[in-house]
C-alpha cells in the first residue's frame, strides 16, 4: 500500500522569500490553503486508498508542510536533510524526532554538505536521479550513493524557478517519467535521455503549473490543476490524472509532491 507523510498547514504562510515563487506581497489565504491541503489528503486516503501519516505542525516553521524536503527514505533508513536556508533549518529536529519515534534508522550526511531530501533525489528503478545547483550540493549525491549502494545520477538544474528536482522531473514507473527539458542543462538532458526510456516532456504551461510536482498512487498521477494537456499522454501509458487545486501552495513554490513524502 502507498503511504505518505504529510503535515497539516496550520502555520503555513509566506513569511520569507527563498525561491522565485515566494513574494511576501503575495500572501496565501489560510482558509483556502487548509481546504486545498485537506482535499489532497482526502484524495490520497479516500479515492486512492493510501495511508497518510501526519507530523505535528510547529509555529514559526511555515514550510514544514513540504514534507518532501524532510529527507530521503529508503526502507527503514531516513537520511535527514541539511537545509540550505536558515529559515528551514529549524525543521530538521522535528522531522528527525518523528522518524526516530517511528523506528527509522536516522542517517546524517557529512558536515557542510547541503541536501534537501526527496525534493532533490528521486528513485526510478535501481537508479536514483538527483538534482544540484540551486539547493542540494553535488557532494550529497556521492554520500547518498554510498549509503544506499545504488547508482546516483547527478542532474544540473538550470532554471531557478525549478529549484528542486521534484519541480521538473517525476518518475512514474521504471522506464517512464515526466520532465520539463528547459529546467535542465544540456548534460542533464542527455543523461535523462540515455537513462529513461520513456520521457514525457511537459509543455511550459503545465511545467509552470508544477505538473512535474506530482505523485503516483494506485495508478493515478496527482498534481495541481491547469495540467489538463497531460491527461491523454498519461492515459496512453495507463495512468489516470487527478488534479487538485493547490494554488495557495504554488505561492510558496510547492505543490502535490512537495506536500508529501513517500514512506512506502
Amino acid at each position, binding site marked *: 500500500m502507498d503511504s505518505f507523510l504529510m503535515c497539516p498547514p496550520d502555520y503555513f504562510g509566506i513569511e520569507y522569500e527563498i525561491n522565485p515563487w515566494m513574494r511576501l506581497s503575495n500572501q496565501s489565504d489560510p482558509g483556502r490553503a487548509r481546504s486545498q491541503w485537506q482535499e489532497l489528503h482526502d484524495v490520497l486516503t479516500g479515492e486512492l486508498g493510501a495511508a497518510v501519516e501526519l507530523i505535528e505542525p510547529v509555529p514559526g516553521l511555515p514550510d514544514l508542510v513540504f514534507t518532501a524536503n524532510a529527507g530521503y527514505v529508503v526502507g527503514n533508513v531516513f537520511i535527514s536533510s541539511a537545509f540550505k536556508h536558515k529559515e528551514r533549518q529549524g525543521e530538521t529536529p522535528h522531522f528527525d524526532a518523528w522518524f526516530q519515534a517511528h523506528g527509522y534508522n536516522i542517517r546524517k550526511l557529512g558536515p557542510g554538505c547541503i541536501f534537501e531530501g526527496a525534493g532533490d533525489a528521486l528513485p526510478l528503478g*535501481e*537508479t536514483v536521479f538527483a538534482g*544540484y*545547483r540551486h539547493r542540494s550540493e*553535488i*557532494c550529497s*549525491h*556521492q554520500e547518498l*550513493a*554510498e549509503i544506499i*549502494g*545504488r*547508482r*546516483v*545520477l*547527478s*542532474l*544540473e538544474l538550470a532554471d531557478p524557478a525549478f529549484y528542486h528536482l521534484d519541480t521538473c522531473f517525476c518518475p512514474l514507473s521504471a522506464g517512464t517519467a515526466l520532465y520539463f527539458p528547459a529546467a535542465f542543462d544540456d*548534460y*542533464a538532458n*542527455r*543523461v535523462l535521455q*540515455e*537513462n529513461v526510456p520513456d520521457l514525457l516532456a511537459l509543455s511550459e504551461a503545465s511545467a509552470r503549473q508544477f505538473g512535474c510536482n506530482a505523485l503516483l498512487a494506485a495508478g493515478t498521477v496527482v498534481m495541481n490543476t491547469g495540467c489538463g494537456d497531460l491527461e491523454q499522454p498519461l492515459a496512453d501509458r495507463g495512468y489516470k490524472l487527478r488534479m487538485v487545486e493547490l494554488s495557495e501552495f504554488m505561492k510558496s513554490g510547492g505543490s502535490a509532491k512537495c506536500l508529501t513524502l513517500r514512506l512506502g
Partner: protein
Amino acid sequence: MVEETVELKGHIIDSLLLPKVLDQVLARGAEYEIARIDIGVRRSDPSYARIILRTDNKSIMDELLATIKVHGAEPVESEDACLVAADLVGAFPEGFYATTNLRTEVRLGGIWLTVENQEMDRGIVVDTTAARAVCKPMHRIAMGDMVVVGHRGVRVIPAERREWGTLFGFMNSDISPEKPKLALVREIARELWNCRSEKKKTLFVGGPALIHTGAADSLAYLVREGFISVLLTGNGLAVHDIENALYGTSLGIRLRDGTPVQGGHRNHLRAINTIRRLGSIKAAIETGLVTYGVMHACISKGIPFVLAGSIRDDGPLPEVITDVVKATDATRDLIRGAHLALVVASTLHAVALGNILPAATRMVVVDINPAALTKLSDRGSFQTIGIVSDSGLFMRQLVETLQEGC
C-alpha cells in the same frame, strides 16, 4: 604556468560530470591531464578521477576551480613545500625530503617546479629567487641552502612507459632467462640505432668480464661507430683491455684460442706498469703503443669516460679516479640527459649507476647471473629491463645485428 589538481568522485561517467568538467576546462583555454581514473566495475560502483589542470593565468584558474567545484571537482589540498636553511656544510637539516629517481615537482608560491638533476636518495635544494629546485647529494650542501623538509608540497610523477616504444613495451621488467634473446637483441640494436640517428645520449657501463669473454672488439665497434656517448667503468676493464692490446691476453688467457699463457697472470700488472710509466692511457695511445681496443676507441674518438676506482684495484691506471665522491660527481656530470644506459657484466657499476640515474633514463642490464639483475630491481631501479646472457655472446650478437642494419 599555474597548476592545480582536483578530484572527482561518484557516478561521474553516467552523470556526464567528467566530460562536463573537462569541457569547462577547455572552454577557458586551460589544459587538463587525467592523472588517474578508476571506473566503477558495476553500475552501482562509483568512479574516481584525479585531474591536473594547467593554465597560464591565475585568475582563470581561480574562476575555473570555482566553476567546477559546483560539479563536484574538489581541489586536492595543496600547499607550498616547507623549506629549511641548511645549518651545516655537507648535511641536510633534520626531516629532509629524500628523493626517488622519478620525476618530482615542488610547489613554491602556488607554482609547481620540476626538480632538476633528478636522482634517488638525495635532498632537494630550492633557489627561491631563481624559482629552481635541484637534487643535491648530502656532501654538496652548502651553509644556508634552502632544503625541502617533509612531504608537503612535493609530488612524484609516476614513470611513463608509453614513450618507450617496443623495446620496453616488449619487456615488462621481469628478469628471466626464459626470454627470446634474439628478438630482444634486435630491439636493443634498433634502440641504439635510433639514439644515434636522433643524437640521444647513450651510456655504456661494463665490467672486465667483457674483455675476458672476448667482447673487446664488439665494444670498441660500438664506440667507434658512435653508438655509445659515454663509457662508465672501473680500473679492471681498462686494464684487461690494454693487457689484450699489448699481449693478446686477458687475465693471462690468450683471447684468440682461450689457452693460458706461461706467466700470463703477470700480464695485467705489466700492462698497468707500462701505462703508469708513460703517465696515462692517452699517452700510450698517442705514442702508438696501444693501437686497438676499447680505451683506444674512446680516446681516439673523443668519447668521454669515467674509470671509478675501488679498494681491490691493481695499479690503478692513472686515469682512475680514486676519490669515490669525485668519481660519483664525474659520473653524475656525464649522465645528464641520457636516454638509454646499456649495462653489461658489471653488478657493482650497474647498482651504482642505478642509484644516480633518473627514472627517465632506461637501463638495459645484461648479466650471466640473474641475481645481479634482481639486485637492481630490489634497490628500486625499476626502469630496468634485465637480460640473462653471457656478455661475450650478447655483444657479438648485438654488433652483428647492427652491422646487418636496423
